[in-house]
Protein backbone atom coordinates (compact mmCIF):
# COMPACT_ATOMS: atom_id res chain seq x y z
CA UNK A 1 0.00 0.00 0.00
CA UNK A 2 1.32 3.44 -0.85
CA UNK A 3 1.71 6.11 1.76
CA UNK A 4 -1.00 8.26 0.28
CA UNK A 5 -3.51 5.41 0.37
CA UNK A 6 -2.70 4.93 4.06
CA UNK A 7 -3.51 8.55 4.75
CA UNK A 8 -6.86 8.31 3.01
CA UNK A 9 -9.31 6.77 5.43
CA UNK A 10 -12.05 7.11 2.84
CA UNK A 11 -11.82 7.67 -0.91
CA UNK A 12 -14.79 8.80 -2.90
CA UNK A 13 -14.14 7.72 -6.49
CA UNK A 14 -16.13 9.06 -9.42
CA UNK A 15 -19.28 8.99 -7.34
CA UNK A 16 -22.52 9.77 -9.15
CA UNK A 17 -25.90 9.80 -7.49
CA UNK A 18 -29.36 10.64 -8.74
CA UNK A 19 -32.83 10.95 -7.19
CA UNK A 20 -34.90 9.51 -10.02
CA UNK A 21 -33.99 11.53 -13.08
CA UNK A 22 -32.43 14.37 -11.09
CA UNK A 23 -28.69 14.09 -10.88
CA UNK A 24 -27.33 15.22 -7.49
CA UNK A 25 -23.67 14.20 -7.58
CA UNK A 26 -21.69 14.05 -10.83
CA UNK A 27 -18.62 11.80 -10.94
CA UNK A 28 -17.25 13.32 -7.78
CA UNK A 29 -13.89 12.25 -6.32
CA UNK A 30 -12.58 13.17 -2.90
CA UNK A 31 -10.08 11.76 -0.42
CA UNK A 32 -11.01 11.99 3.26
CA UNK A 33 -7.83 12.24 5.31
CA UNK A 34 -7.32 9.94 8.27
CA UNK A 35 -7.56 11.56 11.69
CA UNK A 36 -8.51 14.97 10.26
CA UNK A 37 -11.64 17.08 10.32
CA UNK A 38 -13.04 17.51 6.82
CA UNK A 39 -15.85 20.03 6.43
CA UNK A 40 -18.20 19.94 3.45
CA UNK A 41 -19.78 23.29 2.62
CA UNK A 42 -21.56 24.88 -0.29
CA UNK A 43 -24.78 26.62 -1.29
CA UNK A 44 -28.20 25.02 -0.72
CA UNK A 45 -28.82 22.05 -2.97
CA UNK A 46 -25.13 21.61 -3.82
CA UNK A 47 -25.21 17.97 -2.70
CA UNK A 48 -23.14 18.22 0.49
CA UNK A 49 -25.63 16.34 2.68
CA UNK A 50 -26.18 13.79 -0.05
CA UNK A 51 -22.43 13.22 -0.31
CA UNK A 52 -22.16 12.74 3.46
CA UNK A 53 -25.05 10.27 3.42
CA UNK A 54 -23.54 8.44 0.46
CA UNK A 55 -20.30 8.08 2.41
CA UNK A 56 -22.38 6.27 5.08
CA UNK A 57 -24.25 4.34 2.35
CA UNK A 58 -27.63 5.86 3.21
CA UNK A 59 -27.91 6.52 -0.52
CA UNK A 60 -26.86 4.06 -3.20
CA UNK A 61 -24.70 5.63 -5.90
CA UNK A 62 -25.65 5.30 -9.57
CA UNK A 63 -21.97 5.19 -10.47
CA UNK A 64 -18.54 5.10 -8.88
CA UNK A 65 -17.81 3.95 -5.36
CA UNK A 66 -16.87 4.90 -1.84
CA UNK A 67 -13.87 3.01 -0.51
CA UNK A 68 -13.00 2.53 3.13
CA UNK A 69 -9.27 1.85 3.08
CA UNK A 70 -9.15 -0.62 0.20
CA UNK A 71 -12.69 -1.94 0.50
CA UNK A 72 -15.69 -0.82 -1.55
CA UNK A 73 -18.33 -0.10 1.13
CA UNK A 74 -21.09 -1.58 -1.02
CA UNK A 75 -19.54 -4.99 -0.31
CA UNK A 76 -19.74 -4.62 3.49
CA UNK A 77 -22.74 -5.92 5.44
CA UNK A 78 -24.86 -3.51 7.51
CA UNK A 79 -23.27 -4.39 10.81
CA UNK A 80 -19.67 -4.29 9.58
CA UNK A 81 -20.17 -0.90 7.98
CA UNK A 82 -21.87 0.44 11.13
CA UNK A 83 -18.79 -0.55 13.12
CA UNK A 84 -16.59 1.57 10.83
CA UNK A 85 -18.59 4.67 9.95
CA UNK A 86 -21.02 6.43 12.28
CA UNK A 87 -23.42 9.14 11.24
CA UNK A 88 -25.34 11.73 13.20
CA UNK A 89 -28.25 12.58 10.92
CA UNK A 90 -29.64 16.04 10.43
CA UNK A 91 -32.34 16.65 13.09
CA UNK A 92 -32.38 13.10 14.48
CA UNK A 93 -35.39 12.09 16.58
CA UNK A 94 -36.20 9.72 19.44
CA UNK A 95 -39.14 9.47 21.87
CA UNK A 96 -39.31 12.21 24.52
CA UNK A 97 -39.67 9.67 27.30
CA UNK A 98 -36.54 7.75 26.32
CA UNK A 99 -33.76 8.15 28.87
CA UNK A 100 -30.32 9.45 27.94
CA UNK A 101 -28.79 6.09 28.78
CA UNK A 102 -31.33 4.24 26.60
CA UNK A 103 -30.45 6.46 23.65
CA UNK A 104 -26.66 6.33 24.02
CA UNK A 105 -26.93 2.57 24.41
CA UNK A 106 -28.31 2.37 20.86
CA UNK A 107 -24.81 3.22 19.65
CA UNK A 108 -23.75 -0.27 20.70
CA UNK A 109 -26.26 -1.91 18.32
CA UNK A 110 -23.72 -2.89 15.62
CA UNK A 111 -21.48 -4.50 18.25
CA UNK A 112 -24.19 -6.81 19.55
CA UNK A 113 -26.05 -9.79 18.16
CA UNK A 114 -28.13 -12.71 19.35
CA UNK A 115 -24.92 -14.52 20.18
CA UNK A 116 -23.28 -11.41 21.64
CA UNK A 117 -25.52 -9.86 24.26
CA UNK A 118 -24.63 -6.70 26.19
CA UNK A 119 -21.02 -7.14 27.33
CA UNK A 120 -18.50 -5.46 29.59
CA UNK A 121 -17.02 -3.90 26.43
CA UNK A 122 -20.39 -2.37 25.61
CA UNK A 123 -20.77 -1.00 29.13
CA UNK A 124 -17.25 0.46 29.01
CA UNK A 125 -17.88 2.09 25.62
CA UNK A 126 -21.14 3.54 26.93
CA UNK A 127 -19.36 5.03 29.95
CA UNK A 128 -16.53 6.43 27.79
CA UNK A 129 -18.99 8.05 25.38
CA UNK A 130 -21.01 9.65 28.19
CA UNK A 131 -17.92 10.84 30.05
CA UNK A 132 -16.30 12.12 26.83
CA UNK A 133 -19.32 14.26 26.01
CA UNK A 134 -19.99 15.29 29.60
CA UNK A 135 -23.49 13.85 29.79
CA UNK A 136 -22.83 11.29 32.51
CA UNK A 137 -24.87 13.23 35.06
CA UNK A 138 -27.88 13.19 32.67
CA UNK A 139 -27.92 9.37 32.45
CA UNK A 140 -31.41 8.84 33.89
CA UNK A 141 -32.98 12.00 32.47
CA UNK A 142 -35.65 11.84 29.79
CA UNK A 143 -34.76 13.32 26.41
CA UNK A 144 -37.82 15.58 26.57
CA UNK A 145 -36.46 17.28 29.68
CA UNK A 146 -33.13 18.30 28.10
CA UNK A 147 -32.15 21.64 26.57
CA UNK A 148 -31.24 21.79 22.88
CA UNK A 149 -27.54 21.91 23.67
CA UNK A 150 -27.71 18.97 26.09
CA UNK A 151 -29.73 16.96 23.60
CA UNK A 152 -27.15 17.49 20.85
CA UNK A 153 -24.39 16.35 23.23
CA UNK A 154 -26.38 13.21 24.00
CA UNK A 155 -26.78 12.44 20.30
CA UNK A 156 -23.04 12.91 19.79
CA UNK A 157 -22.50 10.55 22.72
CA UNK A 158 -24.64 7.97 20.93
CA UNK A 159 -22.53 8.21 17.76
CA UNK A 160 -19.39 8.09 19.89
CA UNK A 161 -20.56 4.92 21.68
CA UNK A 162 -20.62 3.29 18.26
CA UNK A 163 -16.78 3.58 18.41
CA UNK A 164 -16.30 3.99 14.70
CA UNK A 165 -13.05 5.26 13.15
CA UNK A 166 -15.02 7.64 11.00
CA UNK A 167 -17.72 9.93 12.37
CA UNK A 168 -19.99 11.85 10.01
CA UNK A 169 -22.11 14.72 11.33
CA UNK A 170 -24.78 16.31 9.14
CA UNK A 171 -25.26 19.96 10.17
CA UNK A 172 -24.88 19.20 13.87
CA UNK A 173 -25.27 22.82 15.00
CA UNK A 174 -28.20 23.77 12.81
CA UNK A 175 -30.73 24.63 15.48
CA UNK A 176 -28.36 25.67 18.22
CA UNK A 177 -27.67 29.16 19.51
CA UNK A 178 -24.19 30.67 19.25
CA UNK A 179 -22.91 29.35 22.57
CA UNK A 180 -24.12 25.84 21.90
CA UNK A 181 -22.73 25.89 18.35
CA UNK A 182 -19.27 26.60 19.70
CA UNK A 183 -19.74 24.14 22.55
CA UNK A 184 -20.78 21.38 20.16
CA UNK A 185 -18.01 21.96 17.60
CA UNK A 186 -15.36 22.31 20.33
CA UNK A 187 -16.54 18.94 21.57
CA UNK A 188 -16.21 17.45 18.08
CA UNK A 189 -12.69 18.84 17.75
CA UNK A 190 -11.75 17.55 21.17
CA UNK A 191 -13.00 14.08 20.27
CA UNK A 192 -11.02 14.24 17.05
CA UNK A 193 -7.91 15.20 19.02
CA UNK A 194 -8.37 12.82 21.97
CA UNK A 195 -9.65 9.75 20.16
CA UNK A 196 -8.06 10.29 16.75
CA UNK A 197 -11.39 9.90 15.02
CA UNK A 198 -11.67 10.89 11.37
CA UNK A 199 -14.47 13.46 11.25
CA UNK A 200 -16.56 14.55 8.27
CA UNK A 201 -18.88 17.48 8.93
CA UNK A 202 -21.47 19.26 6.87
CA UNK A 203 -21.67 22.87 8.01
CA UNK A 204 -23.72 25.75 6.69
CA UNK A 205 -21.82 28.57 8.35
CA UNK A 206 -18.70 29.33 6.37
CA UNK A 207 -16.88 30.97 9.27
CA UNK A 208 -17.52 28.06 11.59
CA UNK A 209 -16.35 25.76 8.79
CA UNK A 210 -13.11 27.72 8.37
CA UNK A 211 -12.56 27.74 12.10
CA UNK A 212 -12.88 24.02 12.70
CA UNK A 213 -11.79 22.39 9.42
CA UNK A 214 -8.40 20.84 8.82
CA UNK A 215 -9.57 20.45 5.28
CA UNK A 216 -12.40 22.35 3.64
CA UNK A 217 -14.38 21.12 0.63
CA UNK A 218 -16.69 23.41 -1.35
CA UNK A 219 -19.38 21.76 -3.43
CA UNK A 220 -21.48 23.32 -6.12
CA UNK A 221 -23.96 21.66 -8.47
CA UNK A 222 -23.01 18.15 -7.36
CA UNK A 223 -19.31 18.58 -8.03
CA UNK A 224 -16.33 19.70 -6.02
CA UNK A 225 -15.74 23.37 -6.68
CA UNK A 226 -12.63 23.63 -4.53
CA UNK A 227 -10.85 21.78 -1.76
CA UNK A 228 -7.89 22.55 0.45
CA UNK A 229 -7.01 24.18 3.73
CA UNK A 230 -9.30 26.96 4.98
CA UNK A 231 -6.55 29.47 4.13
CA UNK A 232 -6.42 28.23 0.54
CA UNK A 233 -10.17 28.21 0.05
CA UNK A 234 -11.35 31.26 1.91
CA UNK A 235 -10.54 33.82 -0.74
CA UNK A 236 -12.85 36.47 -2.10
CA UNK A 237 -12.58 34.98 -5.60
CA UNK A 238 -13.39 31.42 -4.55
CA UNK A 239 -16.31 32.46 -2.35
CA UNK A 240 -17.71 34.54 -5.20
CA UNK A 241 -17.36 31.59 -7.58
CA UNK A 242 -18.97 29.03 -5.25
CA UNK A 243 -21.56 31.04 -3.33
CA UNK A 244 -22.28 33.97 -5.72
CA UNK A 245 -21.51 36.35 -2.89
CA UNK A 246 -19.16 39.31 -2.91
CA UNK A 247 -17.26 39.32 0.33
CA UNK A 248 -14.26 40.57 2.18
CA UNK A 249 -12.00 37.98 3.77
CA UNK A 250 -9.94 39.05 6.76
CA UNK A 251 -7.89 37.10 9.25
CA UNK A 252 -9.71 36.43 12.48
CA UNK A 253 -7.56 38.36 14.96
CA UNK A 254 -8.16 35.80 17.72
CA UNK A 255 -7.79 32.40 16.03
CA UNK A 256 -5.76 33.44 13.01
CA UNK A 257 -8.28 31.71 10.74
CA UNK A 258 -9.78 33.37 7.66
CA UNK A 259 -13.05 35.14 8.32
CA UNK A 260 -15.56 35.99 5.61
CA UNK A 261 -17.63 39.15 5.76
CA UNK A 262 -20.36 38.84 3.14
CA UNK A 263 -21.11 42.12 1.33
CA UNK A 264 -23.81 41.42 -1.23
CA UNK A 265 -24.96 38.72 -3.62
CA UNK A 266 -23.59 39.01 -7.11
CA UNK A 267 -27.05 39.08 -8.59
CA UNK A 268 -28.24 41.75 -6.18
CA UNK A 269 -29.71 44.86 -7.74
CA UNK A 270 -29.92 46.66 -4.44
CA UNK A 271 -26.95 49.03 -4.00
CA UNK A 272 -24.64 48.04 -1.19
Amino acid sequence: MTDSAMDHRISVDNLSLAYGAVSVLNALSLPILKGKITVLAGPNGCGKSTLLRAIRRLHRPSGGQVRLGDVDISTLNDRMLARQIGLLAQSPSAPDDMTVEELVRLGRYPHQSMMQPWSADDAAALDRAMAGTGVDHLRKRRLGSLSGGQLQRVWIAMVLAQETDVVCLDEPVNHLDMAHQLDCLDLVRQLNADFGRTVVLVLHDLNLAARYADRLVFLRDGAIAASGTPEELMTEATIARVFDVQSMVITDPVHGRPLCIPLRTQSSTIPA
Partner: protein
Amino acid sequence: MPAALPFPVVWVGLVIALLAAMLMSLTLGFRLYGLDQVWQALFAFDGSETAVVISNLRLPRAVLAPLVGAGLAIAGVIVQTLSRNRIASPDTLGLNAGASLAVVVASTALGVGSLLGLSLSAALGALLTSFLVFAIAAGAGGLSPIRIVLIGVTIAGLGHSIVEIILTTNEAQLQQLLFWLSGSFVDRPMTLAQTGGPIILIGAALALVLHRALDALQADDSTATSLGVPLALVRGGSFVSVALLTGAAVSMAGPVTFVGLVVPHAARRLVGLRHARQIPAAALLGAIYATLADVAARFLIYPVEAPVGAITAVVGGVVLLVLLKRRAA
Protein backbone atom coordinates in the same frame (compact mmCIF):
# COMPACT_ATOMS: atom_id res chain seq x y z
CA MET B 1 -40.99 9.67 36.17
CA PRO B 2 -38.32 7.00 35.76
CA ALA B 3 -39.11 3.61 37.22
CA ALA B 4 -38.49 3.89 40.93
CA LEU B 5 -38.97 0.22 41.76
CA PRO B 6 -36.09 -2.22 41.40
CA PHE B 7 -36.71 -4.60 38.52
CA PRO B 8 -36.90 -7.87 40.48
CA VAL B 9 -39.73 -6.34 42.55
CA VAL B 10 -41.55 -5.33 39.37
CA TRP B 11 -41.27 -8.76 37.76
CA VAL B 12 -42.21 -10.73 40.88
CA GLY B 13 -45.06 -8.32 41.53
CA LEU B 14 -46.44 -8.73 38.01
CA VAL B 15 -46.30 -12.52 38.15
CA ILE B 16 -48.05 -12.60 41.54
CA ALA B 17 -50.69 -10.17 40.26
CA LEU B 18 -51.30 -12.37 37.21
CA LEU B 19 -51.71 -15.51 39.35
CA ALA B 20 -54.09 -13.63 41.63
CA ALA B 21 -56.13 -12.41 38.66
CA MET B 22 -56.35 -15.97 37.29
CA LEU B 23 -57.53 -17.23 40.69
CA MET B 24 -60.18 -14.51 40.76
CA SER B 25 -61.27 -15.62 37.30
CA LEU B 26 -61.67 -19.20 38.60
CA THR B 27 -63.50 -18.33 41.79
CA LEU B 28 -65.63 -15.26 41.06
CA GLY B 29 -68.71 -15.14 38.89
CA PHE B 30 -72.41 -15.91 38.86
CA ARG B 31 -71.47 -18.51 41.44
CA LEU B 32 -68.68 -18.02 43.92
CA TYR B 33 -66.31 -20.88 44.54
CA GLY B 34 -63.75 -21.38 47.26
CA LEU B 35 -60.10 -22.06 46.59
CA ASP B 36 -60.64 -25.60 47.95
CA GLN B 37 -63.32 -26.26 45.32
CA VAL B 38 -61.05 -24.92 42.58
CA TRP B 39 -58.21 -27.10 43.83
CA GLN B 40 -60.44 -30.14 43.85
CA ALA B 41 -61.84 -29.48 40.37
CA LEU B 42 -58.41 -29.02 38.85
CA PHE B 43 -56.38 -31.64 40.64
CA ALA B 44 -58.91 -34.13 42.06
CA PHE B 45 -61.76 -34.06 39.55
CA ASP B 46 -64.77 -35.88 41.02
CA GLY B 47 -67.39 -35.25 38.34
CA SER B 48 -69.52 -33.07 40.61
CA GLU B 49 -71.45 -30.17 39.09
CA THR B 50 -69.09 -27.70 40.72
CA ALA B 51 -66.05 -29.47 39.35
CA VAL B 52 -67.59 -29.58 35.86
CA VAL B 53 -68.43 -25.87 35.87
CA ILE B 54 -64.97 -24.94 37.09
CA SER B 55 -63.03 -27.12 34.67
CA ASN B 56 -65.26 -26.63 31.60
CA LEU B 57 -66.45 -23.04 31.95
CA ARG B 58 -64.14 -21.17 34.31
CA LEU B 59 -60.78 -22.76 33.49
CA PRO B 60 -60.83 -21.95 29.74
CA ARG B 61 -61.57 -18.30 30.56
CA ALA B 62 -58.76 -18.15 33.12
CA VAL B 63 -56.37 -19.48 30.48
CA LEU B 64 -57.67 -17.73 27.34
CA ALA B 65 -57.96 -14.24 28.80
CA PRO B 66 -54.27 -13.94 29.82
CA LEU B 67 -53.11 -15.43 26.50
CA VAL B 68 -55.23 -12.97 24.50
CA GLY B 69 -54.26 -10.02 26.69
CA ALA B 70 -50.55 -10.84 26.46
CA GLY B 71 -50.71 -11.30 22.68
CA LEU B 72 -52.56 -8.04 22.04
CA ALA B 73 -50.30 -6.09 24.41
CA ILE B 74 -47.12 -7.31 22.70
CA ALA B 75 -48.66 -6.54 19.31
CA GLY B 76 -49.47 -3.06 20.64
CA VAL B 77 -45.86 -2.47 21.70
CA ILE B 78 -44.57 -3.44 18.26
CA VAL B 79 -47.16 -1.40 16.36
CA GLN B 80 -46.44 1.69 18.47
CA THR B 81 -42.70 1.32 17.90
CA LEU B 82 -43.07 0.60 14.17
CA SER B 83 -45.36 3.55 13.59
CA ARG B 84 -43.53 5.78 16.13
CA ASN B 85 -47.01 6.64 17.26
CA ARG B 86 -48.13 6.15 20.83
CA ILE B 87 -51.83 6.06 20.00
CA ALA B 88 -51.45 3.35 17.35
CA SER B 89 -52.45 -0.25 18.09
CA PRO B 90 -53.52 -3.38 16.23
CA ASP B 91 -56.97 -1.75 16.05
CA THR B 92 -55.52 1.28 14.28
CA LEU B 93 -53.95 -1.03 11.72
CA GLY B 94 -57.41 -2.37 10.94
CA LEU B 95 -56.63 -5.89 12.14
CA ASN B 96 -59.72 -6.27 14.32
CA ALA B 97 -61.92 -4.88 11.57
CA GLY B 98 -60.39 -7.34 9.13
CA ALA B 99 -61.04 -10.20 11.55
CA SER B 100 -64.66 -9.14 12.08
CA LEU B 101 -65.22 -8.85 8.35
CA ALA B 102 -63.76 -12.31 7.76
CA VAL B 103 -66.06 -13.80 10.43
CA VAL B 104 -69.14 -12.12 8.97
CA VAL B 105 -68.27 -13.13 5.40
CA ALA B 106 -67.46 -16.69 6.43
CA SER B 107 -70.75 -16.95 8.27
CA THR B 108 -73.11 -15.26 5.78
CA ALA B 109 -71.54 -16.13 2.44
CA LEU B 110 -69.75 -19.40 3.13
CA GLY B 111 -72.09 -20.81 5.76
CA VAL B 112 -69.38 -21.41 8.33
CA GLY B 113 -71.04 -22.08 11.67
CA SER B 114 -68.63 -23.96 13.89
CA LEU B 115 -66.65 -22.14 16.54
CA LEU B 116 -63.36 -23.46 15.20
CA GLY B 117 -64.28 -22.41 11.65
CA LEU B 118 -65.21 -18.89 12.72
CA SER B 119 -62.14 -18.60 14.88
CA LEU B 120 -59.89 -19.62 11.99
CA SER B 121 -61.70 -17.11 9.77
CA ALA B 122 -60.98 -14.39 12.32
CA ALA B 123 -57.29 -15.25 12.46
CA LEU B 124 -57.12 -15.39 8.67
CA GLY B 125 -58.88 -12.02 8.43
CA ALA B 126 -56.35 -10.40 10.77
CA LEU B 127 -53.43 -11.93 8.87
CA LEU B 128 -54.74 -10.91 5.44
CA THR B 129 -55.48 -7.37 6.66
CA SER B 130 -51.99 -6.95 8.06
CA PHE B 131 -50.43 -8.08 4.80
CA LEU B 132 -52.82 -5.81 2.88
CA VAL B 133 -51.83 -2.78 4.99
CA PHE B 134 -48.17 -3.77 4.69
CA ALA B 135 -48.37 -4.20 0.91
CA ILE B 136 -50.28 -0.95 0.29
CA ALA B 137 -47.89 0.99 2.54
CA ALA B 138 -44.82 -0.55 0.87
CA GLY B 139 -46.28 0.04 -2.61
CA ALA B 140 -47.21 3.64 -1.82
CA GLY B 141 -43.56 4.52 -1.44
CA GLY B 142 -42.18 3.01 1.73
CA LEU B 143 -43.30 1.96 5.18
CA SER B 144 -43.26 5.40 6.72
CA PRO B 145 -44.91 5.46 10.15
CA ILE B 146 -47.63 7.95 9.25
CA ARG B 147 -48.51 6.06 6.06
CA ILE B 148 -48.94 2.78 7.95
CA VAL B 149 -51.39 4.41 10.36
CA LEU B 150 -53.37 6.28 7.68
CA ILE B 151 -53.76 3.14 5.59
CA GLY B 152 -54.67 1.10 8.68
CA VAL B 153 -57.34 3.56 9.81
CA THR B 154 -58.79 3.65 6.28
CA ILE B 155 -58.90 -0.14 6.06
CA ALA B 156 -60.48 -0.33 9.53
CA GLY B 157 -63.23 2.11 8.55
CA LEU B 158 -63.84 0.24 5.31
CA GLY B 159 -64.00 -3.12 7.09
CA HIS B 160 -66.45 -1.90 9.75
CA SER B 161 -68.71 -0.36 7.08
CA ILE B 162 -68.85 -3.56 5.06
CA VAL B 163 -69.61 -5.54 8.24
CA GLU B 164 -72.52 -3.22 9.03
CA ILE B 165 -73.89 -3.41 5.50
CA ILE B 166 -73.80 -7.21 5.54
CA LEU B 167 -75.36 -7.44 9.00
CA THR B 168 -78.14 -4.97 8.16
CA THR B 169 -79.27 -7.29 5.40
CA ASN B 170 -78.82 -10.47 7.48
CA GLU B 171 -80.64 -9.69 10.70
CA ALA B 172 -81.05 -13.32 11.60
CA GLN B 173 -77.33 -13.77 11.93
CA LEU B 174 -76.75 -10.56 13.82
CA GLN B 175 -77.53 -12.14 17.18
CA GLN B 176 -75.21 -15.06 16.57
CA LEU B 177 -72.36 -12.89 15.32
CA LEU B 178 -72.67 -10.08 17.85
CA PHE B 179 -70.66 -12.33 20.06
CA TRP B 180 -67.72 -12.12 17.63
CA LEU B 181 -68.01 -8.46 16.97
CA SER B 182 -67.38 -7.28 20.51
CA GLY B 183 -65.04 -9.91 21.90
CA SER B 184 -65.69 -12.27 24.78
CA PHE B 185 -64.23 -15.20 26.68
CA VAL B 186 -67.59 -16.84 27.45
CA ASP B 187 -68.15 -20.45 26.31
CA ARG B 188 -64.79 -20.79 24.57
CA PRO B 189 -63.45 -24.32 24.65
CA MET B 190 -59.94 -25.14 25.83
CA THR B 191 -59.09 -26.35 22.30
CA LEU B 192 -58.87 -22.70 21.20
CA ALA B 193 -56.01 -22.21 23.64
CA GLN B 194 -54.27 -25.28 22.27
CA THR B 195 -54.24 -23.81 18.75
CA GLY B 196 -53.92 -20.11 19.66
CA GLY B 197 -51.44 -20.46 22.52
CA PRO B 198 -48.51 -21.76 20.46
CA ILE B 199 -49.08 -19.07 17.82
CA ILE B 200 -48.98 -16.40 20.54
CA LEU B 201 -45.71 -17.93 21.77
CA ILE B 202 -44.19 -17.88 18.26
CA GLY B 203 -45.25 -14.27 17.72
CA ALA B 204 -43.84 -13.25 21.11
CA ALA B 205 -40.57 -15.10 20.46
CA LEU B 206 -40.20 -13.33 17.10
CA ALA B 207 -40.79 -9.98 18.80
CA LEU B 208 -38.15 -10.78 21.42
CA VAL B 209 -35.62 -11.80 18.76
CA LEU B 210 -36.10 -8.34 17.22
CA HIS B 211 -35.84 -6.47 20.54
CA ARG B 212 -32.58 -4.60 19.86
CA ALA B 213 -33.59 -3.61 16.35
CA LEU B 214 -36.92 -2.38 17.73
CA ASP B 215 -35.01 -0.28 20.28
CA ALA B 216 -33.08 1.34 17.43
CA LEU B 217 -36.26 1.84 15.36
CA GLN B 218 -37.53 4.19 18.04
CA ALA B 219 -35.06 6.68 16.57
CA ASP B 220 -35.51 8.06 13.05
CA ASP B 221 -34.82 5.96 9.94
CA SER B 222 -31.46 7.59 9.13
CA THR B 223 -30.19 6.96 12.64
CA ALA B 224 -31.45 3.36 12.68
CA THR B 225 -29.83 2.65 9.31
CA SER B 226 -26.55 4.24 10.43
CA LEU B 227 -26.59 1.91 13.41
CA GLY B 228 -26.74 -1.02 10.99
CA VAL B 229 -30.43 -1.95 11.36
CA PRO B 230 -31.77 -3.63 8.19
CA LEU B 231 -35.01 -1.62 8.14
CA ALA B 232 -37.06 -3.57 5.61
CA LEU B 233 -36.19 -6.91 7.19
CA VAL B 234 -37.02 -5.76 10.71
CA ARG B 235 -40.29 -4.10 9.64
CA GLY B 236 -41.31 -7.21 7.71
CA GLY B 237 -40.50 -9.47 10.66
CA SER B 238 -42.36 -7.17 13.04
CA PHE B 239 -45.44 -7.22 10.84
CA VAL B 240 -45.42 -11.03 10.80
CA SER B 241 -45.20 -11.00 14.59
CA VAL B 242 -48.10 -8.54 14.91
CA ALA B 243 -50.20 -10.57 12.47
CA LEU B 244 -49.56 -13.82 14.37
CA LEU B 245 -50.26 -12.28 17.77
CA THR B 246 -53.41 -10.42 16.72
CA GLY B 247 -54.69 -13.23 14.53
CA ALA B 248 -54.32 -15.76 17.34
CA ALA B 249 -55.87 -13.38 19.89
CA VAL B 250 -58.87 -12.69 17.68
CA SER B 251 -59.30 -16.40 16.97
CA MET B 252 -59.59 -17.03 20.71
CA ALA B 253 -61.82 -14.15 21.80
CA GLY B 254 -62.94 -12.02 18.90
CA PRO B 255 -61.87 -8.39 18.80
CA VAL B 256 -60.92 -7.29 22.33
CA THR B 257 -60.18 -3.67 21.54
CA PHE B 258 -57.87 -1.10 23.11
CA VAL B 259 -55.72 -3.62 25.04
CA GLY B 260 -52.93 -3.07 22.53
CA LEU B 261 -53.26 0.69 22.87
CA VAL B 262 -53.36 1.08 26.63
CA VAL B 263 -51.05 -1.60 28.00
CA PRO B 264 -47.79 -0.51 26.25
CA HIS B 265 -48.07 2.87 27.99
CA ALA B 266 -48.22 1.22 31.40
CA ALA B 267 -45.35 -1.11 30.47
CA ARG B 268 -43.08 1.77 29.44
CA ARG B 269 -43.84 3.66 32.65
CA LEU B 270 -42.92 0.60 34.67
CA VAL B 271 -39.76 -0.64 32.95
CA GLY B 272 -38.66 1.99 30.41
CA LEU B 273 -38.30 1.83 26.64
CA ARG B 274 -35.93 -1.07 26.05
CA HIS B 275 -37.89 -3.80 24.30
CA ALA B 276 -36.10 -6.58 26.17
CA ARG B 277 -38.05 -5.30 29.19
CA GLN B 278 -40.96 -3.57 27.53
CA ILE B 279 -42.20 -6.70 25.73
CA PRO B 280 -42.27 -9.03 28.78
CA ALA B 281 -43.78 -6.29 30.96
CA ALA B 282 -46.49 -5.58 28.39
CA ALA B 283 -47.21 -9.31 28.10
CA LEU B 284 -47.73 -9.65 31.86
CA LEU B 285 -49.71 -6.40 32.19
CA GLY B 286 -51.86 -7.31 29.19
CA ALA B 287 -52.57 -10.73 30.67
CA ILE B 288 -53.57 -9.19 34.01
CA TYR B 289 -55.69 -6.50 32.35
CA ALA B 290 -57.63 -8.88 30.11
CA THR B 291 -58.20 -11.34 32.97
CA LEU B 292 -59.51 -8.63 35.31
CA ALA B 293 -61.68 -7.16 32.54
CA ASP B 294 -63.15 -10.62 32.02
CA VAL B 295 -63.92 -10.89 35.74
CA ALA B 296 -65.47 -7.40 35.73
CA ALA B 297 -67.60 -8.37 32.72
CA ARG B 298 -69.36 -10.92 34.94
CA PHE B 299 -70.56 -8.29 37.41
CA LEU B 300 -71.07 -5.14 35.33
CA ILE B 301 -74.69 -5.94 34.38
CA TYR B 302 -75.10 -8.88 36.79
CA PRO B 303 -76.48 -11.47 36.37
CA VAL B 304 -76.01 -11.06 32.62
CA GLU B 305 -72.46 -11.14 31.20
CA ALA B 306 -71.19 -8.00 29.49
CA PRO B 307 -68.90 -8.47 26.51
CA VAL B 308 -65.30 -8.05 27.73
CA GLY B 309 -64.48 -6.09 24.57
CA ALA B 310 -66.97 -3.44 25.67
CA ILE B 311 -65.19 -3.07 29.02
CA THR B 312 -61.70 -2.80 27.51
CA ALA B 313 -63.09 -0.32 24.96
CA VAL B 314 -64.59 1.92 27.65
CA VAL B 315 -61.44 1.84 29.81
CA GLY B 316 -59.26 2.24 26.71
CA GLY B 317 -61.34 5.11 25.38
CA VAL B 318 -60.96 7.03 28.63
CA VAL B 319 -57.20 6.38 28.72
CA LEU B 320 -56.91 7.47 25.08
CA LEU B 321 -58.69 10.74 25.85
CA VAL B 322 -56.34 11.37 28.78
CA LEU B 323 -53.31 10.68 26.57
CA LEU B 324 -54.58 12.97 23.84
CA LYS B 325 -55.36 15.72 26.33
CA ARG B 326 -51.89 15.45 27.85
CA ARG B 327 -50.31 15.57 24.40
CA ALA B 328 -52.31 18.66 23.47
CA ALA B 329 -51.41 20.40 26.72
